[in-house]
C-alpha cells in the first residue's frame, strides 16, 4: 500500500477521445426561501480537472448533485457535451460518481460492485467479468475481487469505488469529497494516484472538497464557492497567489492581511499606504470595493538587513514555533501582527525576542485585495 499502484492508460478496447464537457448556465437551487446555489455559471472543459472548493454550506455538493441528477435545479440549464440533461434521470447521464463514503454495495464482492454498471447495460457475462477485472487491475486490486467491501481497508474501498465509476467509460467523473475518510498519508497518496489516472484517461473531473491543500494539489482549475456563489476561479497558483478578497486569501492557507489605502493604481501595480508600515508597491488585479488590504503569504515575508530598500519595515519578534519542516515566527511591526514562515534549515536560530529586526517582501508577492469582512 505504499507504492503508487494505479497504472494509467487508455481504457482498453475503447480508444475513445477525451470527451465530457460539463456546462452550467445560470443554475440556481432554492430550498424554500433558502438559496443554496445562486445563478452559477461553470464550465468544465473535456479532460479538465475542476475543483469546487468551499466551506460547508457553500453549495458545492448541491452543485455536484444537480450535475449528477440527484437534485433538481430550480432554474438554469445543465449541459453535458453540449446536450441539455435537465430532464434526464441520473442513470441516463453517463457520469461516474464516487461518493463521500464510497457507497459500495455491502452484499456484493468488489468484482460484483465493479461489474454492476455493465450488468445494468446488459453487457454479456464473460465480457463484463473481463472488463471489471481490468478495471480492478488498473487500481491495483486485481487479487481482491472476491472480497466483500467490509473486508477491505478504507483506501482499498476507495479504489473499488473508483474502478466502479470508471468501468463503463463515463463522460466525466464526479468526486464528492472522496478522501475525507482517509488518514493524511493515504490521502496524499490517493491524490497523486487519482491525478495520474485522470491524466492517463484524459477524463474530465468535477471534484468537490473543503480541503484547500487537496484542491491545490490536484486541480487544473479551482472554483472557490461561498454562499452558493463563485467567489473566484482560476488555476491553483493564481488563486493562491492572487486572491481577489481577504476571504479567499484566508480560506486558501495562512496570510498576513494589512489594511491599506491606495495612493496610485497603474495597471498591474499599485502604490499603497500601509499606515504604520509606510508606503509599498504591490500587485494589482483590478479588484474594486470600499476597503482594501494587502495580502502577503507568510512564506513570502523575509528577514532583511536594514540596507534593503522598499517594501519593508522594522519588526520585533514575539515567538517562534518549529513545525518540523518550517519555522513560524510571530512578529509585530507598526502595530500589526505578522507571521513569517521559513524553512527550518534557513531558520535564524540566533534571533531573540525584543531584538529589532527588519522584514520585507518582493513587490510581486504582495497582492492588493478587497476587504469584505
Amino acid at each position, binding site marked *: 500500500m505504499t507504492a503508487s499502484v494505479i497504472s494509467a492508460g487508455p481504457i482498453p478496447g475503447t480508444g475513445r477521445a477525451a470527451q465530457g464537457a460539463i456546462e452550467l448556465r445560470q443554475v440556481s437551487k432554492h430550498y424554500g426561501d433558502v438559496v443554496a446555489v445562486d445563478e452559477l455559471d461553470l464550465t468544465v472543459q473535456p479532460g479538465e480537472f475542476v475543483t469546487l472548493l468551499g466551506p460547508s454550506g457553500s453549495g458545492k455538493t448541491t452543485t455536484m448533485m444537480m450535475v449528477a*441528477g440527484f437534485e433538481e435545479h430550480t432554474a438554469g440549464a445543465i449541459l453535458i457535451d453540449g446536450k441539455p440533461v435537465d430532464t434526464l*434521470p441520473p*442513470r441516463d447521464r453517463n457520469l461516474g460518481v464516487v*461518493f463521500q463514503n464510497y*457507497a459500495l*454495495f455491502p452484499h456484493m464482492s468488489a468484482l460484483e460492485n465493479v461489474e454492476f454498471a455493465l450488468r445494468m447495460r446488459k453487457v454479456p457475462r464473460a465480457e463484463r467479468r473481463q472488463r471489471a477485472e481490468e478495471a480492478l487491475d488498473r487500481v491495483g486490486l486485481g487479487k481482491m475481487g472476491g472480497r466483500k467491501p467490509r473486508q477491505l*481497508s478504507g483506501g482499498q474501498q476507495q479504489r473499488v469505488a473508483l474502478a*466502479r465509476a470508471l468501468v463503463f467509460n463515463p463522460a466525466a467523473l464526479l468526486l464528492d469529497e472522496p478522501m475525507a475518510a482517509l488518514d493524511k498519508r493515504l490521502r496524499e497518496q490517493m491524490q497523486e494516484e487519482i491525478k495520474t489516472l485522470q491524466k492517463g484517461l484524459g477524463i474530465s473531473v468535477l471534484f468537490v472538497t473543503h480541503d484547500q491543500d487537496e484542491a491545490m494539489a490536484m486541480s487544473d482549475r479551482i472554483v472557490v464557492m461561498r454562499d452558493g456563489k463563485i467567489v473566484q476561479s482560476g488555476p491553483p497558483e493564481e488563486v493562491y497567489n492572487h486572491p481577489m478578497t481577504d476571504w479567499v486569501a484566508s480560506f486558501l492557507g495562512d496570510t498576513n492581511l494589512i489594511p491599506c489605502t491606495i495612493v496610485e493604481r497603474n495597471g498591474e501595480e499599485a502604490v499603497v499606504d500601509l499606515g504604520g508600515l509606510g508606503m509599498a508597491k504591490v500587485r494589482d488585479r483590478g479588484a474594486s470595493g470600499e476597503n482594501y488590504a494587502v495580502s502577503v503569504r507568510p512564506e513570502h515575508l523575509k528577514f532583511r538587513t536594514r540596507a534593503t530598500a522598499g517594501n519593508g519595515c522594522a519588526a520585533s519578534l514575539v515567538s517562534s514555533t518549529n513545525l518540523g519542516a518550517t519555522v513560524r515566527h510571530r512578529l509585530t511591526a507598526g502595530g500589526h501582527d505578522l507571521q513569517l514562515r521559513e524553512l527550518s534549515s534557513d531558520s535564524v536560530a540566533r534571533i531573540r525576542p525584543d531584538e529589532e529586526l527588519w522584514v520585507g517582501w518582493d513587490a510581486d508577492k504582495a497582492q492588493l485585495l478587497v476587504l469584505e469582512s
Partner: protein
Amino acid sequence: MRGKILASSAFGLGGVVLAGLTLSGVVGAGAQVAPPPSFSRGVAHAVIATPYVYLTTRASLAGLNPALVRSAQSLGAGPLSVLRHVYLPIILPGLISGALFAFSVSIDETVMSLFMQSPGATTLPVKMFTDIQFNLTPKIAVSSALLVSVATIGLLLQVLFVLKRRSSTRMLPLAVSAQT
C-alpha cells in the same frame, strides 16, 4: 417518529379490523353472504401479523445508506433494478425475521382462530384446544413434543449461526477489525 405512530396504530387497528371480520363471519354465517371462511381467516391472520413484518422491515430500511441507491442510479439502474439489487438484498434479513414473527404470531393465535374456524379446516392450536376439551388422546402429547422440539432445534441453529459468524469476523485482516 411518524413510522412509530403508524406502527402502534397498526397494532391497535388490527383489533378493529378483526372485530369487523369476526362479526361479519358470525352474522354472515346465518345470512349465507360471508366471504369463504379460509379467506377471512387468511385476512385476519395477516392483519395480526402485518405490524410485526412492518416493524422489522422498517428497521432494516432505516439502516440503508441512501447513497447506495444514488450510486446504483448513477451506475445505470432503473427503479426496478434498484429494488432488486439494492433494497431487497439489504432488507432481506429484516424480511425473513418479519416472516418468522408473522408465522409464530399466527400459529400462537388461538382465540381469533377459534372464532373464525370452519368445519372443513382448522388450525393446529384450535385443534389442540378442542381435543383437550372433548377428545383427550396421546396425540396431544405428541404434537406438543413436536412443537417444542422444532422450536428448540430452531433456536440451536440460530446460536450455531451466530457463533460461526462471530468467529469468521474475528479472522478478518487487521485493517478491517481496526475499522469496526
